[in-house]
């Protein structure tokens, strides 16, 4: 404690110094991640905003035969025909029937354009890169491969660039006549 002084101004100033918070340093824009958060089943996922073209309501899915299970079909969005991936099948999450409440997130990475099926679009958010922690070792397999990390509030951040670069998602299958 400081020795008592008779000057009220001094006292008030001392109190203000004691109470004052140090201002947080302005976040470094390069250290921030712009994320689009969406929901799959009961889990929250996020992808980098820079790869997202737009989000669209889910409608008129055309089923495509002779495709892997994670390709749900193709949709027509403003004249562009895009395949629709279902991450639930990647991650082994429980499926529900498709409704028009589902959303399709249109993404583009390199020369690949496709739609990701999401139960709901939650929000756009910016988080520090530092807050993304590496995935726990319990997440293994493909999930472990596609993950960028997990935040403190259990937001699973996917590494969309790697997913899009994964040759496994390129379908090149011929069906014998």
């Amino acid at each position, binding site marked *: 404690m400081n020795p008592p002084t008779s000057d009220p101004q001094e006292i008030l100033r001392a109190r203000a110094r004691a109470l004052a918070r140090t201002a947080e340093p302005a976040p470094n824009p390069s250290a921030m991640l712009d994320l689009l958060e969406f929901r799959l089943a009961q889990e929250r996922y996020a992808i980098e*905003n820079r790869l997202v073209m737009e*989000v669209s*309501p889910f409608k008129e899915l055309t089923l495509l035969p002779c495709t892997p299970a994670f390709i749900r079909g193709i949709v027509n969005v403003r004249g562009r025909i895009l395949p629709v991936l279902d991450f639930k099948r990647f991650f082994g999450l429980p499926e529900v029937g498709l409704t028009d*409440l589902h959303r399709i997130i249109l993404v583009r990475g390199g020369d690949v354009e496709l739609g990701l099926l999401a139960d709901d*679009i939650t929000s756009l958010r910016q988080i520090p890169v530092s807050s993304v922690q590496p995935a726990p070792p319990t997440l293994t397999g493909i999930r472990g491969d596609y993950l960028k990390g997990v935040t403190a509030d259990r937001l699973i951040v996917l590494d969309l660039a790697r997913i899009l670069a994964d040759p496994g998602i390129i379908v090149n299958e011929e069906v014998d006549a």
Partner: protein
Amino acid sequence: MKWNVGTKLGVGFGLALAVFVAVGIIAYRSTQELLSASGLREHTYIVLSNLAQGLSALKDVETGQRGYLLTGETDYLEPYQAGLKEIDRSFGEVRKITTDNPGQQHRLDRLELLIKERLASSKETIDVFRSGKSDAALQIVKSGKDKALMDQIRAVVAEMQNEEEGLLIKRSAEAKSNAEQVEWTIVLGTVLALVIAGVAGLIITRNIARPLQELTRVAEQIAGGDLSTNVPADDRDDEVGALFKSFRRMGESLHSMAGTAENIAAGDLRTNVQPQSAKDMLGTSFARMIGDLREQLRSLGEGATTLGSAATEIVASTTQLASSANESATSVSETTTTVEEVRQTAQMANQKAKAVADTAQRAAQISQSGRKSTADMAAGMERIRQQMESIAASMVRLSEQGQAIGQIIATVEDLAAQSNLLAVNAAIEAAKAGEHGRGFSVVAQEVKSLAEQSRQATNQVRSILSDIQKATTAAVMATEQGAKAVEAGTKQTETAGESIQALTGSVTEAAQAATQIAASSQQQLVGMDQVAIAMENIKQASTQNVASARQLETAARNLNELGQRLKQLVERYKV
């Protein structure tokens, strides 16, 4: 003495009567003489009186003459005129009365001549005076002729008066001696008659009354039942003697009857009584009595035997009767108690019946009001049914409107979702624009926020609508159930109305029946009261019967003893 009692009485009182008759005759004759003497004396007094009156009238004539002559007033002639008439009347009377006396008649002739002369002189004097010759009249008076005539007249009258007074004295003396003689005769005759009657009475009394007194004494003893006295012997031949004989015979007869009665009393009925005569009532009665007694004793003996056996039977019967009466009294007492209990039960039943009747009346009234209530209820149920129908219609409309709201909400929700997507796309575009798109990013954020709010609101509205729809559905179902319930209620109300109608009829009948029951019960109670009273009377009668039976038993025993005693008594008689 051979005279009977009548002769003795006749002789004794006949002597006394004869003396009285003699005295009476003598007295009568003397009285006749006294009466004639008295008539003669009265005669003499009349003659003397008339002589005096005639002389006085003559003096009146003289006085009138003199007054007239002195005064000349005719008023003084009134005594003169009256005197003339009185002279004629009085001396005429004297002549009529003294016709039996020639001396007096002779003197009367002389007197009449003198009077005529004197009256003529007076008349002459008055006539002369009236003709105005008062002096000549005075001369006539002065001549003294009138005075001489008056003196002669007075002398003749005095002679006649002397004659009559002498006669009076003589007749009075005769009457006096005659009366004294009669007086003596009456006194002596009466005394003599009394003496004779007394002597006769004394003799008759001694001769008749004494024996009669003796007989009376004996009759008094016989009347008192003493037959031992003997009638004294008297051998007189007259009625008293006969009376004595009859009394003696009567005594003997009564004595023999008494002996017979003594025998009968001693129980010996073997004596035969012979009636003294055909009219001997006592003897005949005794003979009949003995005969009847024998017959009755025989009958009595048989009767006593019969009575004895009958009394024995009666004793047995009465003993049985007494025990039966006892038993019946006990039974009657029990019956009385039972009847009393039944009566109390009937009373309670009556009270209950009255209460039931009242209750039934009230129930009838209540059921009447219940009938009205069911009618009201039916009307109410009808109204409820209508209300339920309108509620159901409202519910249907509400449901439809809820569905419409749901559609609207879906639309709004859709819009919100699209807005949200648009906001996300806008944000993405803004992010792509970099620093330039920062402001747009804020707008996109706001739009997204609005879309989110819209979504939440629509969610709330949807949940509310869902609740409303659930509630509406429930309400519709409830309304349908309510309608059904109301329908059922209406039917039940109708049923209840019919039931209550029937119930009202039944209750009314029950009330009437209860009233009749109460009346019947009242009658029954009255009847039971009468029965109770009758049973009480029967009980008393039964108690009296028991007492009577006991008395009867005692009486029968007494009767039995009496029969035995009677038998013994009858056996004592020798028939």
